[in-house]
């Protein structure tokens, strides 16, 4: 009898797109495929902690992708076009390269979670199509939608330019002065925030621009600017009434299921959105500069477009911080709390440096994303690294950390329960900045605190 091959644990990835959290458990995923997925969805990935409230939980068995020119491939594609059915509680989608089914389960009220399983070819296009279908079907059930559009951040607000294929969405994205302001050139998520206002979220679902949003951060949606072709190189913005806007929006509303309940739900969301958000027809050509577009759009954006508004949730704030850190390699952060006293004081600014795991050592002060159950329960934690223990998975380590003012040691698996964003490189206090002491100095502080805290506690009894 031959020895049984060791079972490998399924890979996990948790995405938050438009505030909808999807947990994918991928059985049979090759490391190179996971790298592909993380390259595409990394900006929308969050730690896969089991306590994070999930809207979609999908167990997916990955199968080897058939070569595009394999015998019978064309016939299989023709015989199994995309088919989506959405009955009251169940969403099923299948195509030649995937088949999934999820069913709604009542969660912590008013939360509903869709749980299910399926199979999918180990092919990024198959996964992407499946995710688009699931998000397009689930988002309207939580009062949102995926809109075929180019979404742009402008100052502190968001503008959505809906348009069908060929309307100029990718061209508009390419003309953006800062590519990081592009939320997507293909599909953006729009939904009402907790404060009742509409917000636009970036997505990893891109078109010819070949990159999506850079973080989970959403922006107050100020205007729907429906793209139209101008007869000459000029730009005009013509206000349109909500009924006309609804009609146009429905043409750009990504929806796969055609059952009555789904269509009624989508229609209701579209009507609400167009009744509450300004709409214009943006008539322009590909040669019109972006600055001209926004100059003409300015009167239709409403007041205070430059007024800073905080992110909608702690999760969005942390995701945005991560994107800035990835972009600049180091970034300032002002911690709250007292767990690192006396080393850190209120009002200190920390300079965080992104650091690969191999570059982290005991004594370093880590900044990491500690997810909570809901987006507002997420936290950025800044604690000193005590040690690192390898885990059963080759690519993950278990970290031991501690606040200098605390006796308790915390432990987490990096990437799963928390995500290390970087380490503190320097501290700024009272106008002076000094680098964080070297490793030896940090270790001395660490051991000092480990010993000192229990003694102080005993003395206080």
């Amino acid at each position, binding site marked *: 009898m031959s020895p049984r091959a060791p079972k490998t644990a399924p890979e996990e990835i948790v995405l938050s797109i438009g505030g909808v959290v999807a947990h994918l458990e991928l059985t049979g995923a090759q490391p190179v495929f996971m790298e592909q997925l993380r390259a595409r969805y990394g900006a929308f990935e969050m730690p896969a902690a089991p306590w994070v409230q999930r809207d979609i939980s999908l167990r997916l068995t990955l199968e080897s992708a058939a070569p595009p020119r394999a015998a019978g491939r064309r016939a299989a594609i023709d015989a199994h076009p995309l088919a989506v059915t959405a009955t009251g509680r169940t969403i099923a989608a299948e195509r030649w390269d995937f088949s999934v089914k999820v069913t709604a389960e009542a969660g912590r009220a008013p939360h509903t979670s869709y749980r299910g399983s399926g199979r999918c070819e180990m092919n990024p296009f198959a996964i992407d199509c499946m995710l688009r279908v699931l998000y397009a079907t689930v988002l309207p059930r939580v009062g949102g939608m995926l809109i075929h559009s180019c979404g742009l951040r402008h100052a502190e607000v968001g503008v959505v330019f809906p348009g069908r294929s060929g309307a100029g969405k990718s061209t508009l994205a390419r003309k953006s002065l800062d590519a990081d302001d592009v939320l997507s050139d293909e599909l953006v998520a729009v939904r009402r925030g907790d404060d009742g206002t509409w917000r636009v979220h970036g997505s990893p679902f891109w078109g010819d621009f070949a990159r999506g949003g850079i973080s989970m951060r959403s922006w107050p949606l100020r205007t729907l600017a429906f793209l139209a072709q101008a007869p000459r190189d000029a730009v005009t913005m013509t206000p349109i009434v909500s*009924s006309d806007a*609804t009609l146009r929006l429905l043409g750009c509303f990504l929806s796969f299921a*055609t059952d009555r309940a789904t269509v*009624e739900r989508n229609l209701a969301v579209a*009507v609400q959105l167009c*009744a509450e958000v300004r709409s214009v027809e943006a008539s322009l050509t590909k040669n019109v500069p972006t600055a001209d577009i926004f100059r003409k759009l300015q009167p239709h954006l409403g007041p205070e477009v430059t007024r800073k508004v905080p992110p909608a949730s702690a999760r969005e704030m942390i995701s945005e911080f991560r994107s800035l850190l990835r972009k600049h390699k180091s970034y300032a952060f002002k911690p709250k709390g007292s767990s690192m006293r006396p080393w850190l004081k209120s009002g200190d600014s920390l300079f965080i440096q992104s650091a690969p795991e191999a570059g982290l050592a005991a004594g370093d002060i880590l900044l990491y994303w500690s997810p909570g159950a809901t987006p507002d329960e997420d936290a950025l934690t800044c604690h000193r690294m005590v040690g690192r223990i390898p885990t059963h998975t080759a690519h993950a380590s278990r970290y031991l950390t501690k606040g200098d003012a605390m006796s308790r040691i915390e432990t987490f698996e990096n990437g799963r329960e928390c995500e290390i964003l970087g380490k503190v490189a320097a501290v700024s206090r009272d106008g002076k900045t000094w680098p964080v002491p070297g490793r030896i100095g940090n270790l001395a502080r660490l051991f000092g605190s480990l010993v000192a805290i229990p003694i102080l506690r005993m003395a206080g009894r």
Partner: protein
Amino acid sequence: MSAAMAGRWRRDGELPFQKLDEETIVVDPKRREVHLLNETAARIWELLASPQSVDDLTAALGAEYDVGEAELGEAIVECVEGLASKGLVVTAGAR
């Protein structure tokens, strides 16, 4: 009035719709079409919740619109024909 218009009509009960201020949006998922009905068409759509002949519609709308009966009847026939051509209304016996 054409012979085809002589029967009773009702709106297709399968089609989702939403009333706006004065207009109504009707979605036809099978054809993947969306229709925006103006105020008059929206009112006819509303009346066609139950089977109605053109004469019924003319009588109902005659009390609401300040227009001659013949002119109103023609406008209603044109509207119902338009709705029927888009598959939004069906004869009362259908489906």
